């Protein structure tokens, strides 16, 4: 796995994606675009984990039953050199743990995304706009002439 770090290009792509997503986060003032950038950013973190888990020449971490016909068929699709070396039983898997972790992280990401989008909807309802600059201007305008917002009406 540590060697995996040395096999560079996947990581180069991941870093590039990460930078791109951060760039989106930095430059846009639009709430929806910001959420897109954020999801992208989380996704690259996921990709990073998946890339870590890849073992050179290994297969997906799915248990192969060498006896059954299905297993035989799958084994046949593996790299013949490995089968020769390890036998069908000794199949080299990718590390399954990061996959599991990222599954969790994706769930977290989806939850964040949904909460974020829900808030974006509320912002649009309250301000009539989804640009943060406009929101800031509206707040500044509201706070200048008179003390801001005791709009103390309970939740509508």
């Amino acid at each position: 796995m540590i060697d995996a770090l040395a096999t560079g290009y996947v990581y180069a792509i991941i870093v590039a994606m990460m930078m791109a997503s951060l760039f989106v986060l930095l430059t846009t003032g639009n709430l929806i675009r910001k959420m897109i950038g954020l999801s992208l950013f989380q996704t690259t973190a996921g990709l990073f984990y998946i890339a870590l888990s890849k073992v050179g020449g290994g297969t997906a971490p799915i248990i192969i039953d060498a006896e059954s016909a299905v297993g035989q068929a799958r084994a046949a699709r593996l790299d013949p050199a490995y089968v020769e070396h390890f036998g069908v039983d000794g199949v080299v898997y990718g590390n399954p743990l990061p996959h599991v972790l990222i599954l969790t992280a994706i769930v977290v990401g989806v939850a964040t995304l949904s909460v974020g989008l829900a808030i974006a909807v509320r912002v649009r309802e309250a301000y009539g706009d989804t640009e943060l600059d406009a929101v800031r201007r509206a707040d500044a305008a509201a706070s200048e002439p008179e003390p801001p917002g005791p709009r103390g009406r309970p939740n509508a």
Partner: protein
Amino acid sequence: MIGLEFLNIAPQRFAEQAPALVVVGPLIAACAAVLAPGRRWAWFLCVGASAFAFWMAVVLASEVARQGVISYAMGGFPAPLGIEFRVDALSAMFALLISGMAVLTAVFSGESLETEIMSSKHPLMQGGFLTCLAGLLGLVLTGDAFNAFVFLEISSIGVYAMIAMGGARDRRAYPAAFNYLIMGTIGATFYLIGVGFLYAATGTLNMADIAARIPTLTSDRSIEVGLAFILIGLALKAAVFPLHQWLPAAYSHAPSMIVVFLSATATKASVYLIIRYLSTVFAFDWQVETAFMAFVLAPLSVAGILICSMQAAVDPEIRRILAYSSVAQVGYMTLAIATATSAGVSAALFHLFNHGVMKAALFMAIGGAAIHLKSQRLSDFAGAAKSAPWTMTAFGIAALSLLGAPLTAGFLSKLRLIQSLVAADWGWAAAVIGLSSLIGVFYVGRIFEVVFFRSEPEGGSAVREAPVSILLPLWLLAIANIWFGIDATIPLGLAESAAGAVMGATTLSPAGAP
């Protein structure tokens, strides 16, 4: 260790399962609260579940005091493959602080939500609160790096949603929640990436295991990069200057209840993780870490202390004054941690505890006043002490504590901080604390002048006395501020043993002791 051992009357089976129960209890209650038929039910559930969590935290703490580190294999899968809950004195201290504050907040929430949130949404709010509580408790108890990420996000998502709930009363809560969400998620993802680097280098996610394997590795950049990502991510969550920018807006527009809880616990939990990583996972004497603390953490802390104190000194809105002061106080803690001494960590933890107690009281008093006063401008609190003497007296006590007046908890923790900084030969840092205390005089002085000495506006002050269910926890905290300022056995014991657990034995030889 904590003087609350008498509460440890749980049957042995309970005590054994306490590490899981302390998290699972609030989590289940959260689901139940969302489904609760009415706001009363939700409130009872909330108080009950928090109290249960507090009880379990006490059980845990006394078990830790009795037998040292508790290792609990979640689901029966042993570490390092399974998720391990690893409770030492540090975790126990934070669990106590968080769950204790949760009880008070839960009691406070009943009347406070009444005026701030439409009653049909109370169950959602309480559910969010319990989720957040479960997340924070899990965060401080878990011994698994990735699991910590999950708990971090569980608590954060609850918080985002609850801050946004404030939007019905003050629409600025929406962008505040959104900004917090973006920043928080960036922080969490940074943390996730950092953990990935550590995993890549060590092949394990269990913190103790990572710590054990790091020394065996030849120099590998991925550990250093991982450290950088993790610490920056956590610094974002802990609102270390200048990554704090989500905090003032979030604190000033969210519903009072969540601000009380957040101010006392949420950033603190991230400080916990920072300490955990700096001390347990990595080693304090690792030169990379010393360099980080001397050249990044300490300067940022100093800048945060000074700049945010100044901002607090001139801001016209009372909650934002307190929020800026919170950032400055986080600066105190990180500054003391950056000394990388046992005394420093102990002082930081001591201050963290006391700061939790005083800030919760301050925000609680503001929340109590907010029941009748919709504005948060400091000037609208003119003469509030006349119309709400009980609320405002408690507020005044906590404000004095924030200032560090003698006979209050704040004084002892500042003294302790300065002692530890001087002992570490960081006299300049002690001077920074002195200087910021001077600035603190201004913002606390301003608050005092307005609340206690300015005459009421025409037609009387809009501030009214808070109801009993708010005064009760408020005064409990106010008295705690004085009590811990006179007899600091409990917080000091907690902080010392917590620092001892992660740093080895802690002995600060105080100046002047014969």
